[in-house]
């Protein structure tokens, strides 16, 4: 199974750090936290990122604007709004976003699906 590369975008350090830690606890998932748009774009150019996840502290307008810019430069990246459920919803949000993606089978491993 291919490793999933995820950026957590949030200006709130302690919230962002928890989500990055939760991501890194998953086998085959790699999480990176960035607090600002310029740092986000630097990391997107440096690594082959699969998902950008918006966490706490990002307004709806910012999400829309940043999403457009990401998609212009990196159209295959999946963008997710994380609804602050930490590990409770995070895996679900990622699984849900990967559903229907051509490459999803590369990332889906041992989730408890019914």
């Amino acid at each position, binding site marked *: 199974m291919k490793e999933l590369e995820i950026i957590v975008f949030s200006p*709130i350090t*302690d*919230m962002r750090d*928890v989500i990055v830690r939760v991501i890194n606890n998953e086998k085959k998932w790699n999480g990176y936290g960035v607090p600002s748009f310029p740092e986000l774009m630097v990391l997107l150019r440096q690594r082959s990122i699969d998902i950008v996840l918006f*966490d*706490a*502290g990002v*307004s*709806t307008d910012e999400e829309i604007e940043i999403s457009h810019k990401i998609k212009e430069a990196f159209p295959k990246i999946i963008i997710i709004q994380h*609804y*602050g*459920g*930490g*590990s*409770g*919803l995070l*895996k*679900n949000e990622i*699984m*849900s976003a990967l*559903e229907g993606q051509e490459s999803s089978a590369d990332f889906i491993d041992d*989730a*408890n*699906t*019914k």
Partner: protein
Amino acid sequence: MNTVLHKADTRGTANHGWLQSKYSFSFGNYYNSERKQFGMLRVLNDDFVEASKGFGKHPHDNIEIISIPLEGDLEHKDSLGNVAVIKEGDLQIMSAGTGVFHSEFNKNSDRSAKFLQIWIYPNKKNVEPRYDQITLNTNKMKNQFSQVVSPDETYDGVWLHQDAWFHIGQFEKEMNIMYSIKKEGNGVYAFILEGTAEVEGHKLLKRDGFGIWDVKNMNITASKNSKILLIEVPMN
């Protein structure tokens, strides 16, 4: 009319030893693409927590969290400075908004706690985080549905950032009730806490869930000694 039926034994499960949970909708490691949410109702977890155990400090943002202890007591602490015990018969709301850290522990060292955890997507992002709790008026729930959550702080119960309403009814005898949906575009999800009920012709047992939308009313026949939670939420 559209409906969905979730039998109690079809819920997702998790057993962490100190915590045993049943999930009406996808949560944690339980993922079912057909059970992700009911409109803005995203999480309905039925939790059992061992004595003195609980959820350590963890964050939430941009979600409305309602906790209803069914047995036992929980001690809540959060980064807003709130320290509170929610007891059986209470109801707690936390609007996570821009972000809040909190913990919830079984307050008692000699008995387990059971509670419902319900998460609703808010209608406004990045609000100021807030916390509130009330003791439910059981007299108002006797043989009728009593409002316990609503969008307006001037109404009965606690309020939240969403056009959602919660009602609880406790029925001593068999009764027919028609619940009228309060906002066009909303659906309502009935969750049987105790006993049985018939909802729109469907026989429901304890912890069954039944959702209905694209209707104006929900017809319920509550059985004797039943207790029912109704969660009305926007479907979009």
